[in-house]
């Protein structure tokens, strides 16, 4: 039961230290502990080693996602995202993949919905190029979720300049601003 009490004040920047203890007594979600909501909303940081030599697949994937979203701007709408970032980096000659997301639904729901998008759209996931990723992910959602959970590194500190504001609320505010500007123009 995501327990996001609503009255957090977006106008007051806020930071939250996340301790090992607070993670240990986190509420239980369907697939494990619920990673708590912070002033920077919900999120994850997945870090995993890639299968050697697969770098080009990642760059091709980037172009596919760019194209996919351009053609269908609501492709990822279900995920209630703010931002996603993908990185590749090297440690000791081995390439690692980092995937960070900031969004408004809880972690398990995000992962389930993401699997839904990947299977429904026929998109393959870059995750297939990570070591240890379950080959039967399309028919075995719990195994996908487990991989994601096993490779998630919870943050120990998160900050929000406009804390807890959801991406829907921000879009609403921007729409209102646009409408207001339009109204002022009309009144000239």
């Amino acid at each position, binding site marked *: *039961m995501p327990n996001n009490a609503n009255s957090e004040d977006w106008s007051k920047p806020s930071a939250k230290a996340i301790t090992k203890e607070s993670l240990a007594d986190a509420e*239980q*979600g369907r697939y494990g502990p619920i990673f708590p909501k912070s002033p920077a909303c919900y999120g994850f940081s997945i870090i995993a080693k890639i299968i050697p030599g697969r770098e080009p697949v990642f760059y091709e994937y980037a172009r596919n996602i760019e194209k996919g979203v351009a053609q269908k701007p609501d492709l990822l709408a*279900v995920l209630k995202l703010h931002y996603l970032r993908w990185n590749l980096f090297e440690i000791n000659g081995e390439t690692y993949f980092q995937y960070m997301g900031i969004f408004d639904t809880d972690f398990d729901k995000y992962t389930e919905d993401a699997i*839904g998008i990947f299977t*429904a759209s026929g998109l393959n996931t870059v995750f297939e190029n990570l070591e240890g990723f379950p080959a039967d992910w399309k028919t075995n*959602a*719990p195994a996908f979720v487990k991989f994601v959970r096993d490779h998630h590194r919870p943050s120990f500190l998160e900050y929000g300049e406009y804390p807890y504001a959801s991406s*829907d609320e921000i879009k609403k505010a921007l729409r209102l601003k646009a409408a207001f500007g339009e109204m002022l123009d009309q009144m000239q």
Partner: protein
Amino acid sequence: MLEIDDIQHFVIERAKALAARYEFLSFRDAKGARAWLSALSGTVSSAAQMRAAPSSDRRWVTLAFTWNGLRALGVDEASLATFPEEFKQGMAARAEVLGDIGANAPEHWVGGLASPDLHAIAILFAGDVAERERCRQEHEALVAQCEGVVVLSSLDMEATPPFDHAHDHFGYRDRLSQPVIEGTGEEPTPGSGGPLKAGEFILGYQDESGQEPVLPQPEILSRNGSYIAYRRLEEHVGKFRDFLRQNGDTPDEQELIAAKLMGRWRSGAPLILAPEKDDPALGADPQRNNDFNYKEMDPKGYAIPLGAHIRRMNPRDTAPSMNRRRMIRRGATYGPPLPEGTPEDGVERGIAAFLVCGSLIRQFEFAQNVWINDKNFHELGNERDPIVGAQDGTLEFKIPKRPIRKKITGLPAFTTVRGGAYFFLPGIKALHYLATLGNHSESE
């Protein structure tokens, strides 16, 4: 092809029963358990048999097992390990996920349902109370002959009058919206969406993702089976009626409050199609009573509040992956009806229901965790399902209304969870496989 001759009728067909008895069993001896199963499995009809059966049939038997129950029957550890995690843990262990906290917590459950000794359920549906009594006696005699088979508890169910339509103790007409499984030949009523892939409810078929999910092993055990979540929910009828009186000055206003909590008038008429005044003829007409959506017809919830029970349990065109979250509902009411005008008598009454699905974690647990108990569902801020949410008297229920909305604060709990369990409902061949387990292995 849907193997309707191997699927228990329970998943596909609704028995024309006015009474039922649920028997909750424990097995202390694998041989005795299999003897019980052998004796009963012949009485379990497949969906095909039920369709072909004469209308004079008077009783319908359904059998299902907990994970511990499968072990008690002699299923080996390697096979047990292939079942999904949530089913292995069982409903009581999932309490926090499900919102079964406070008065709803497993420590308060009755009938041994929270115990690891709960192994099986026999659902005996009967044409009437006399037939149920006959079945009860027959089952009692069978149990007495089977070594180590113990009845932990049982629950008698009776339809509540008037008998011309299904309804609960609060008075709401029920069984109006139900998913249809592709391949059963059933036609969805207008507004119910197309038939869904069988894998959403039955193991061994493609589901709405277009894939065939991995099966627990061996396949003879899992194919044509389903998972069912059992919920025994007490309904506090006196408290419910007091609440309506406190929040509505006239009988009409009280009816409207009841309708807003559910999203349908107690007659069954959906508020979107009858926003101001009840329309019992609409409520009773399956060609019309489910023919609505939310995004186009009521985006802001002026007719059906965003937090109303049916809008949460099936957000229709306002939820992603909706077809991956549907459930088939079965069940009945138990306990004596509380006549209108009678004060609360303290007798337990309620609904004892089953939610049938292909994946407990994706369907039933999602519904409990997100739709029923996420306080911020649809950005509502401080609400849970007004009928079945974990209510502790601190939450709200908002009724959108022009020019200003009505906000009810301090919503009481109208229901309490009195028990529940996860069962696996095997196919017909799987029942025989389980009954003859000892013949293939010497694992005791």
